[in-house]
């Protein structure tokens, strides 16, 4: 079995976001980029399948700034190959999901694989999520919001078993014919850690393969007219003062409602 895991980096959501001068994008100058957390879960799920069955795991990303770090980290965790697709201009920082999907579809059409796993969503998915768009481009079965993928299930002849999560934590178990594209919400267990030293070691050995893909001619079909920080219509009353004073005010708010046990 061969599993392809698609990775991308997104800005760290813990940070403050500013909009650039012409309001067309976020200001990327000082942003920290991290591997999309859902992609990290997709990688973990793939590695769990590898641990159990010996499946091959390839990680692939577009030639975005910083992607090498995520690819090397994935190799250090146990991925077998890392591939970087070149040919799409990503220098502006943000690339719509349809264009990204077209790049991955362009590559996957020439590959043999059983599963494509990627994060169910990313924080900058303005024009939709990668898994269903890619799945449709390749005309493959696709399932989103998945919290577990099991292979070699006796009940599934030519596919895998996937757990899809619905509102309120209800989970449906599905038999999915492969090859399939799966959007992972959470792996069966938290993503594994890998020591920085090991990532450095892998990095020194190199090993990211580059593949040139023709850039897609069509995009998402929408224009961003303006980006802005949400207007704060009903703003919270801000508690100010020293740490101790703010703590005192918070306790008083709870106490005055008779809620302090």
């Amino acid at each position: 079995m061969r599993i392809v895991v698609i990775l991308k980096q997104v800005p760290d959501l813990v940070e403050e976001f500013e909009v650039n001068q012409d309001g067309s994008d976020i200001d990327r100058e000082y942003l920290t980029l991290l591997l999309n957390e859902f992609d990290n879960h997709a990688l973990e799920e793939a590695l769990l399948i590898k641990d159990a069955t010996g499946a091959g795991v390839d990680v692939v990303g577009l030639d975005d700034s910083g992607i090498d770090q995520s690819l090397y980290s994935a190799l250090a965790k146990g991925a077998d190959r890392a591939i970087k697709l070149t040919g799409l201009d990503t220098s502006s920082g943000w690339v719509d999901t349809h264009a990204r999907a077209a790049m991955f579809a362009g590559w996957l059409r020439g590959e043999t694989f059983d599963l494509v796993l990627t994060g169910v969503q990313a924080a900058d998915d303005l024009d939709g999520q990668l898994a269903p768009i890619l799945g449709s481009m390749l005309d493959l079965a696709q399932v989103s919001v998945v919290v577990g993928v099991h292979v070699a299930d006796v009940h599934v002849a030519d596919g895998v078993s996937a757990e899809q999560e619905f509102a309120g934590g209800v989970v449906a178990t599905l038999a999915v014919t492969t090859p399939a594209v799966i959007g992972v919400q959470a792996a069966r267990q938290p993503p594994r850690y890998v020591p920085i030293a090991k990532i450095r070691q892998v990095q020194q050995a190199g090993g990211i393969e580059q593949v040139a893909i023709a850039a897609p001619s069509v995009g998402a079909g929408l224009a961003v007219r303006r980006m802005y920080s949400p207007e704060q219509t009903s703003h919270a009353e801000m508690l100010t003062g020293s740490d101790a004073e703010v703590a005192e005010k918070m306790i008083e708010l709870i106490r005055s409602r008779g809620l302090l046990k």
Partner: protein
Amino acid sequence: MVNDVVVIAEHAGGALTDTTFELLGKARQLADDWGGQAIAVLVGDAALATQLGAAGLVVTVDGPGFVEYTSDSYLDAVMAAIGDRAPRLVMLSTTTAGLDLAGAMSVRWDAPLVSSVVAVVAEGDAVVATSQIYGGKIMAECVITADRALVAVIAGSFPSGAGHRDGAPDVEALVPSAQGAARVVFRSRAEPAAGDVDITAVDVLVAVGRGIGSKDDIELVQEFAEAIGAPVAASRPVVDAGWLPKTRQVGKSGLKVKPRAYIMFGISGAPEHLEGMRDAELIIACNTDAKAPIFDVAHYGTTVDLFDLLPELTEKAGG
């Protein structure tokens, strides 16, 4: 161009979902603006069509293959229902089914899609959809001038009232053409396991989000929670990281809570979380980002660092 607006209805446990009515109310308004009609597409459980009175037309697709939702067969069904109707706009929710279907429909129907939408307006012939991205921290106003478009809307963006109307919409029952073997087959469903604490049944909840940074530091939150006799709840990233069990998760994919006080640390207020807690009576939020969307929802807030604040709170609550 046909100026109809299609809503992909969703149902669970024999009832239409709230988001279906939220979309339908908005669809009707937009269709009125454009001089078209609101059309609801209902896959499975065709008997629910009578409740979709706000629609001018309900297209149902029902049969043995549609008893349970599966991405593949429902996608075929909604595409068949749209057929050659050529609506101006198709509206879905950012639910699990909405995430499955919206992107796939955008490819199959060759239509632009805006996701995580909180507002949609008609501007002449154009659709202007505002998307809330980067965990709710940035709004992006998108203009679609193509003759067709899709939006996937965040729950709670529109009032559901306008979608609840008595009426007798025309119902068109579509007989699905014979499909090949389904690529996605439903096998079973499991309700979430009960946890040690029922966070939906307590007066006070202390909640922690990704701002806490590490599993070890959750202890700081737990100490304060213990001091005030409250359980600790969490937003999705904390649960996905395995720092707290799933039974403590508040939000779209977790539990909906309505405590008398909800005290939150390091939660910026992504739509997924707000969906589960915005009705709490008293909301106090601690987040170092003064522009975090949580401060729109909270009644009281502070930008004091949670690592400085929590020890003070624990001390004062115990004293």
